[in-house]
């Protein structure tokens, strides 16, 4: 015992133990991750589906039905695919708070793992568009800003406005602003067509073109306000408002001052 305690106090004991601990942790992680990689296909997938089903039964089934078959107030989710679930739940639109017009983007309720489970469960019901992977979403490399702008103006601007600021639709529905929307979610919206939005299949707009659109939206988002304050980028309405308030207001103010009698 005396010897052990003496060794414990040796100068080199600390560093040696540290190296040993790092080595142990490293190898254990390597082995463990290798193991999980090999078994994720079968057993883990069914576990995820089961987890997703449980989450679905708790959070979604009251409207979408116990087997996602839909009901009087909500559509069937059979065949909508993982991308649709990832978009709707990942932007906080689902679960829905107010069913009067359309689902509103709000705080996300589920964690990424839970969203993945829900998406995997819904995708297991029938095939549908899958969540695009990061490899697919390399818009910086595969997209073209100018083409994206042209495609955006042809296909998207009529609802989302020329600068992707959003716009009005009928009966209180609206196309939301695309500022601050993740590239993945923009991509998912195009392939699944949420709310009033049409589906832009890969035949209508190819995956490369979709990436160009995303690249243009991101460029518009980060574009500096070139001519001064952008006034919301909604066109002449705010410009007219400014002319009628600040513009003429300042001038009338000065006119009143000029016409005052000198004291």
């Amino acid at each position: 015992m005396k010897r052990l305690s003496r060794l414990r106090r040796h100068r080199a004991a600390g560093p040696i133990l540290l190296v040993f601990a790092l080595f142990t942790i490293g190898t254990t992680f390597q082995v463990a991750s290798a193991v999980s990689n090999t078994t994720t296909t079968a057993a883990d997938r069914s576990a995820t589906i089961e987890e997703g089903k449980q989450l679905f039964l708790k959070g979604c089934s009251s409207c979408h039905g116990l087997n996602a078959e839909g009901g009087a107030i909500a559509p069937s989710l059979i065949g909508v695919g993982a991308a649709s679930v990832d978009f709707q739940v990942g932007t906080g639109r689902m679960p829905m708070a107010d069913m009067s017009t359309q689902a509103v983007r709000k705080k996300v309720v589920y964690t990424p793992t839970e969203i993945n489970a829900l998406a995997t469960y819904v995708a297991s019901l029938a095939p549908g568009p899958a969540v695009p992977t990061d490899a697919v979403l390399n818009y910086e490399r595969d997209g073209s800003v100018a083409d994206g702008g042209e495609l955006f103006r042809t296909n998207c601007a009529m609802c989302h406005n020329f600068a992707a600021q959003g716009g009005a639709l009928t009966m209180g529905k609206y196309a939301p602003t695309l500022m601050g929307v993740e590239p993945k979610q923009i991509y998912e919206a195009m392939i699944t067509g949420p709310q009033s939005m049409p589906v832009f299949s890969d035949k209508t707009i190819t995956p490369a073109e979709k990436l160009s659109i995303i690249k243009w939206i991101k460029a518009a988002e980060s574009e500096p306000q070139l001519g001064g304050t952008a006034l919301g980028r909604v066109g002449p309405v705010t410009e007219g408002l400014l002319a009628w308030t600040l513009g003429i207001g300042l001038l009338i103010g000065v006119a009143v001052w000029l016409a005052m009698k000198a004291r």
Partner: protein
Amino acid sequence: MTARERIAGNVAGYVDDRTGAAKWMKKNLTKVFPDHWSFLLGEICLYSFIILLASGTFLTLWFDPSQREVIYDGGYQPLSGLKMSAAYASTLNLSFEVRGGLLMRQIHHWAALIFMVGIVVHLLRVYFTGAFRKPREFNWIIGVGLLTLGIVEGFLGYSLPDDLLSGTGIRIAEAIIQALPLVGSYISFFAFGGAFPGEAFIPRIYTVHVLLLPGIFLALITVHLMLVWYQKHTQFPGPGRTEKNVVGYPLMPIYMAKAGGFFFIVFGVTAFLGAVASINPIWLYGPYTPGQISAGSQPDWYMGWLDGLVRMSPPIETHAFGHTISWNILLPGLILPGIMFTLLALYPFIEQWATGDKREHHLLDRPRNAPNRTALGAMALTFTLVSLMNGGNDIISTTFHLTINQMMWFSRIGVLVLPPIAFVIAKRICLSLQRADRDLVLHGRETGRLVRLPHGEFVEVHEPISPEKAWTLTSHEQLAPLELPEYDQAGVRRPKALANKLRNRVSRANAVAVPKATETERRELEGHH
């Protein structure tokens, strides 16, 4: 005489010997103008017009008014390599490559918006104070002409860059032209040199925008000002002010300084807006292609009310003899504005007809003392405001979480129902203000000082107003209603009986007023106190 005075005198003498200007200058430099802030509103228009001429000239140095197709290779990356018209490409170039170009473009556009705002505010001042009455009817008509041309000129300028927004505007203009029965499609072919959009339209409107209309503007503005000069400026009533004099300050030096200074203020405000606030960011709109459109496409505000009328119009069409008449465009796009501008231009004569007052007026009315005119103005304003609001229905509905359908129905009903309500409310407010004036003259100003009398009663002390103020409040005349005969002495109906009956009725409504305080009433009350 100092050396300086001698030199100045020699120069002046030299010029006068050759031009004879001294006599004219002596008379006109001392011309007196009355002082009121609202008399400077027209100057806002004049100065923004000068700014428009100057900044517009700068823009023409780089703008290429051509619809020839080019491939953009300029500095703005999001449009790089796209096909576009030379007009659009040169506007991009003007915005990004030319030093100070974007600032000039923005100053030009802000000055245009302020020019139109100024015209409308100036028109409202002239209308509500009755400054259009004899002898100024022609100048009123010139003013209405300037307003109308301003709308056209502004629209053409907005259309020139050939961006997605302006192309949409031209498309709507084309639709309105085509809505003309029988000749519409021919006129459209004539204007566009073939099918829309063609390659002829932008070069054509460029000539109109930079040459024809500015020329007409210059001529009309000159006549407008010469008439003001010749007829002298109107003034508000007050002690010492009559129909035969003008009380104010001389042009030189007071108004030279004020007006000259005001030009720089207007230029400063316009340049400030041009420097800090983006306007018409054409690079975001993209080049025009007939297949594209943006949500929330709007015209500039002075066209907004016309757009609002078109947006609210119900879908009515007539099919006859193989032709379609699109009332949904024809009515709000051409007929209604035509009626409105005609009524506006003819208003001085309509009022003369209704009041029978054909005398000269150089003293202005306070709006409350002409309740019917004020109420009619409130009615027209309400109509235009509802239409203008509907022009921005998409932006308003997304901003305030309304539905576009609610907005449309509100406008459809409101545009008919609200103006008469505004008429009644404005008229009642005018009469109440007359009553308040009468009270003020008879009982004086409320001092807010409460006094307790020996027997316990509390009274508020009223202070008589100054004789000058009392004069100002009572100097206006209250017209008696017309009593035009319907029958002649023999009891036979006159040829104009029906018209006379109508005029009597309108004039009776027009003469409704709270009787102003008279001197006798005032003395009588003073005796009581």
